[in-house]
């Protein structure tokens, strides 16, 4: 599974948020999108999911564009949003049922998987509750469970480390690792740099809708001319460039 973003320009209105953005997410890789508030992380993600249409440039999943086959394209993606949004009228169990139906998954084996995940996230005793009344972290866990039972090949996780308790973050990273080994690609956006540094293979540093630097930590260190700097220091350096410009 390979996600290729090529010269993407886009945003909400006429004024583009993203300007000529290009990067690639290969299978078996975790790519962390890093940038200040308003740098264009969420906008990039919305474009990848097809919630926004690019003004120019292209996004392909294994060579497939959204317009070519919406259903096949969407089947390849699972998404965990930053702000969990759930159906007010569905119970936790029904959310999983609906995911199974929507992605046309095998009921029995998927439920087995779901039970395991629910246990991991300590939700297994709340199957008949309305998750809309859960706390933010618990809602996020529901979204994680719904995303990770799919057979998607690209997992998009928006700000996974805010709102989750440390144990859940640990479990989530474990899940990501497993999916990666199975050949999936993971794209996550985050501010929590220490977590990103530990869990991602590649980084894309976004600034004002443009890719400032990308690659492994080593490559980014070279790009900034700061050997042995950690992600935190590189991030601060990037924001300093703004001031001097």
């Amino acid at each position, binding site marked *: 599974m390979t996600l290729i973003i090529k010269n993407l320009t886009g945003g909400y209105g006429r004024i583009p948020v993203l300007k000529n953005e290009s990067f690639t997410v290969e299978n078996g890789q975790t790519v962390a999108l890093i940038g200040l508030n308003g740098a264009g992380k969420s906008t990039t993600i919305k474009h990848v999911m097809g919630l926004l249409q690019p003004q120019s440039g292209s996004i392909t999943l294994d060579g497939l564009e959204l317009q070519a086959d919406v*259903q096949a394209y969407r089947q390849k*993606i699972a998404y965990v949003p930053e702000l969990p949004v759930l*159906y007010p009228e569905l119970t936790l169990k029904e959310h999983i049922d609906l995911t199974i139906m929507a992605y046309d998954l095998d009921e029995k084996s998927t439920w087995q998987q779901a039970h395991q995940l629910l246990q991991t996230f300590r939700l297994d005793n709340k199957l008949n509750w309305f998750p809309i009344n859960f706390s933010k972290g618990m809602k996020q866990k529901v979204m994680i469970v719904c995303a990770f039972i799919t057979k998607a090949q690209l997992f998009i996780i928006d700000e996974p480390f805010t709102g989750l308790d440390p144990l859940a973050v640990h479990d989530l990273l474990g899940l990501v690792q497993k999916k990666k080994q199975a050949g999936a690609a993971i794209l996550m956006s985050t501010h929590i740099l220490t977590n990103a540094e530990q869990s991602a293979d590649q980084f894309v540093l976004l600034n004002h809708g443009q890719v400032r630097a990308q690659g492994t930590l080593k490559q980014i260190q070279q790009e900034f001319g700061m050997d042995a700097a950690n992600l935190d220091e590189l991030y601060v350096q990037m924001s300093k460039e703004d001031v001097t410009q």
Partner: protein
Amino acid sequence: MKSLWQQRFVQHAKEQSKFLKLVFNEYFILAIIFLIGAVGFWYSQALDQLPPNSWWARPVAILVLGLVTLLFKPVTLLQAADAAFLLPREKELPQYLVAARRYSLIMPSITTALTGFFLTPFLARGAAFTLVKVVFLTLTAIVAAISIIINQFNSLYQKSTIFSKIGQNTLGSFLLLIIAAYVNEVAALILALIWCGFNYYQWQQLAAKQIFNWLQAVDIEANRSYQLKRFYNLFTDVPGIAHQAVRRQWLDWLLKPIKPKHRNAYLYLFARGFLRNSDYSGIFVRLTIICLLLIYAIHNYLLITIITALFLYLVEFQLLPLYKNYDGIVLTQIYPLTQSQKQQSFQVLLLVVLGMQWLFIVITLLLCNHLTTQLLWPVVVSLLMVIFLLKWYLPRQLTKLNK
């Protein structure tokens, strides 16, 4: 701080007038005029039959007046964000609260006075009260109502919650009214004034020295405005007052036939939305019940034919927003499902809903009428209406909504 109150008050007044205009629409005013007329007529009839010097006249008057004095809550117009933004200016808050209290006293005073006015003939006949005595009793009740509001404002500065004041307020109010009705009305008024004066004195002490209970005050205000908006919501759509989803487990058998298949995904969602969101199921239940009552009451076949067709159309039309209800939820947007699956599922749901409505209509028609050939009119026409709505009208509306 005073200007903050002014600003909030203007906003509050605007909002209230907007909602009140919607509540007191011409139909409601008409209904109220009839209602007042009917109640007034009943009241005068009842007064005629009231035996003079009934032992229960005074207790009833005390109960009514006492409950009215306890009905009101302080109107502070505080907002949740105030607990963060106004903290540094807490010392000036009493200015704001005094203005708020002044406004909070208007409604209780007027309502208590009006209650006293309506009770005058009742007390004059039932308990042989003179007009002066009724006036003193009412004045006592008004002063008690004012004391209660002041007391509730005081509790915002005290460790005791507003609820622990309920006992004190109830006792105070009823005790004063009992004294006025059974012992001496002048003494009761003087005692009420003393109570009021004491509460006012306490306010000044508290506001000068104590810490304000921000969270409690914000909670109380939010609660008060929520109750009011819930009332307005009976007449119109109030933003922010959404119907909470209700589980309704006892209806789960209706959902059983929807098999967990890929093509049923939307139907699975819509059916649950319909049953558990009272916005939709409520419309269906209300309109169907009204329709059935009309069938029961009216025996003109032509009229019934028109009514049943109309109600089927109304239900169909009112359920349309459910089609777009889930569009804002990101999961719906990224599911690998198609527009045509969505449309088909919604049509199936409406087929079931309108089919059930038609069935109820037919059963009621058969139960409430003699079996004649004329009865075929409403049965057949409403069936044709269902077919027309589902086959012709609904698909066109949905195509329009898809754009």
